[in-house]
């Protein structure tokens, strides 16, 4: 590793993994695999516990703001672990001179989203730092939820078998592009809105009706490609993805073409990858599609036996290529 931390080490790809493993995991003695939430068993209860920091720039973007994001993100990390999110703690680092009205609006969005998701914000902390010592506002949320014993396998994907199907609940890349557009870096406006949403109710309906849900993960920083590579590594199998079946909205597609981004690597804040046992995929798809948050769900690929643990993309034009982990950042701070 270099002498100084670089932005690439926060991209969510290989360099972030290296940073986490070499600096934190070995010192903290955290047991692998690293999943979205820690699963804690104590006195007969099983809890899921997670934390996440939000540094999105700008703080307000089409479809949400840093406050909504801070609640959705933590709710989703718990929900994709199979847990029922219950309580959230929120910490704020505020730069001197930050507009009070913006802070009130952001807190209001957090309260609204918490109500919608059915979680309570029960603890918090506030620090104000000198001007220039942080960029406007950073929020950290931690959350906990109850995990039923029959859901404990979901975050590790240990029941995944070849032939299992991969499903996502809608088009990719909207959050990343909405934030980029809001940053005024593009000399034109985009109609793209962030997909930022709490997915716990949608996920609960899927889990209640489908017995063969083998894995879930939200497709945030690093996008689908990163999650697929992490999954392949975790379960020791290969994954095949059919590019033509991966939904991407036209404005996002167009901007990606223009800017040289690949939607498969872009961040989302309301998208989940579900791995379902073969035969159960249609039922999952039906439930997802009956919900506004899953209306454009698609089956995008399947688990295949492969000792090399490769993620292979069947390109839309009939070719094949390996979908690798991203090695650096595509975009700056987006969550």
């Amino acid at each position, binding site marked *: 590793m270099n002498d100084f931390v*670089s*932005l690439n080490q926060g991209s969510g790809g290989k*360099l972030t993994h290296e940073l986490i493993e070499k600096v934190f995991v070995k010192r903290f003695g955290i047991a692998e695999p690293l999943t979205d939430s820690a699963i804690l068993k104590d006195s007969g209860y099983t809890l899921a516990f997670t934390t996440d920091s939000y540094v999105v720039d700008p703080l307000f973007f089409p479809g949400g703001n840093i406050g909504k994001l801070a609640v959705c993100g933590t709710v989703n990390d718990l929900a994709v672990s199979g847990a029922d999110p219950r309580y959230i703690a929120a910490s704020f680092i505020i730069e001197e001179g930050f507009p009070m009205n913006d802070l009130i609006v952001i807190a209001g969005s957090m309260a609204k989203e918490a109500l919608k998701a059915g979680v309570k914000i029960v603890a918090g902390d506030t620090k104000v730092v000198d001007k220039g010592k942080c960029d406007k506002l950073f929020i950290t949320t931690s959350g906990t939820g109850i995990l039923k014993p029959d859901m404990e396998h979901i975050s590790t994907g240990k029941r995944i078998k070849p032939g299992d199907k991969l499903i996502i609940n809608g088009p990719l890349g909207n959050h990343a592009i909405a934030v980029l557009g809001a940053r005024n870096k593009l000399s034109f406006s985009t109609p793209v809105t962030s997909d930022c949403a709490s997915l716990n109710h949608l996920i609960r309906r899927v889990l209640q009706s489908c017995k063969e849900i083998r894995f879930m993960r939200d497709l945030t920083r690093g996008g689908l490609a990163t999650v697929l590579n992490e999954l392949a590594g975790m379960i020791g199998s290969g994954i095949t993805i059919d590019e033509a079946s991966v939904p991407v909205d036209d404005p996002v597609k167009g901007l990606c073409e223009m800017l040289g981004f690949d939607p498969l690597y872009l961040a989302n804040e309301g998208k989940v990858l579900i791995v379902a046992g073969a035969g159960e995929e249609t039922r999952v798809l039906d439930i997802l599609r009956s919900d506004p948050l899953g209306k454009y769900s698609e089956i995008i690929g399947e688990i295949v036996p492969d000792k090399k643990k490769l993620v292979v993309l069947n*390109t839309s034009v*009939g070719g*094949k290529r390996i979908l*690798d982990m991203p*090695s650096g950042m595509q975009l700056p701070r987006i969550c």
Partner: protein
Amino acid sequence: MKYIDEYRDKGLIMKLADQIGKSVRRDYTFMEVCGGHTAAIHRFGIPSLLPGNVKLISGPGCPVCVTGTDFIDKSIAYSKMEGVIITTFGDLVRVPGSASSLEKEKAAGADIRIVLSGLEALEIARINSEKKVIFLGIGFETTAPGTAVTIKQAEKDNIKNFFLLSAHKVMPPAMEAIIKEGVNLDGFICPGHVATITGSTVFNFIPEKFNLSCVITGFEPTDILQSILMLVHQVNRNTPKVEIQYNRAVTDKGNIIAQRHLSQIFEPCDEQWRGLGVIRGSGLKLRKEYEKFDAEKIIPVRIKFREEDVLCICGDILRGLKTPEDCALFARICVPENPAGACMVSNEGACNTWYKYKLIK
């Protein structure tokens, strides 16, 4: 999506691949000059659709990859000066100089900012009037007009703290240098975006002087396959000429307005290309009347001359003599997160593309 889906039609692509298969009579080697073509060829898996006797090799058309070590070293030297802000396209920050990269210097505290255009860099200069803002100008005939417009705007708005460190380049002299290098070639997949600006006639010397085929090509899979088919036909008939496949964007005259901006602001100069050395008349430097924006003239900086890494074969790859897989460093020491050579840095670099879009055999 309109203007995308039509050019990625699987049926059409299979038909083109089939026609290429039926037309080939010998071995063919074509060079795609533009990095955008290299990326598209691998992203869509084009080589897996071609018969074994059609070989594609990557040329020097990724602006980041051909930027010399000395340019990076100079940029780093500027970034260490008091009161200087470096503005650059994102790709360039990871390119290794002789001892460091802009990314490493940024992490160590230098004020290096990523911009999407020259005009954005000019805006930074406007806001930070007490600082000197240096824009790292890289790119070919496609990018250079944007820099020219930026210089004109700086002149018009009387901005005195904006400077250009230019490594802008033009393509035809590099193509000539490659031919003279003795690379075994039958023709060029010519750069579509460069030709949009320059017009097709700048490539006429290639068939006329060197008897090689040229097809100016778009960036979608059907464009590339159609161009390969056109090249195969040219070679079969032994009628080398410049044909325009990308006729929805390219004309013989090109974009006259952009050309005018270029010639008003820049004049040709000899330029250093990574791996190719100095090529006469291949660079663009500011004209005398705009020298007040020339970073090297106004803010002199000295760097030590250093040899490029002897193990890295980026130079041979850029000249089409070798492929990334011939390199001892490729995918072992040289990977996208730790590039040893410039071809591994950019999304359009041959090594990066080979690494990212490894074909499944």
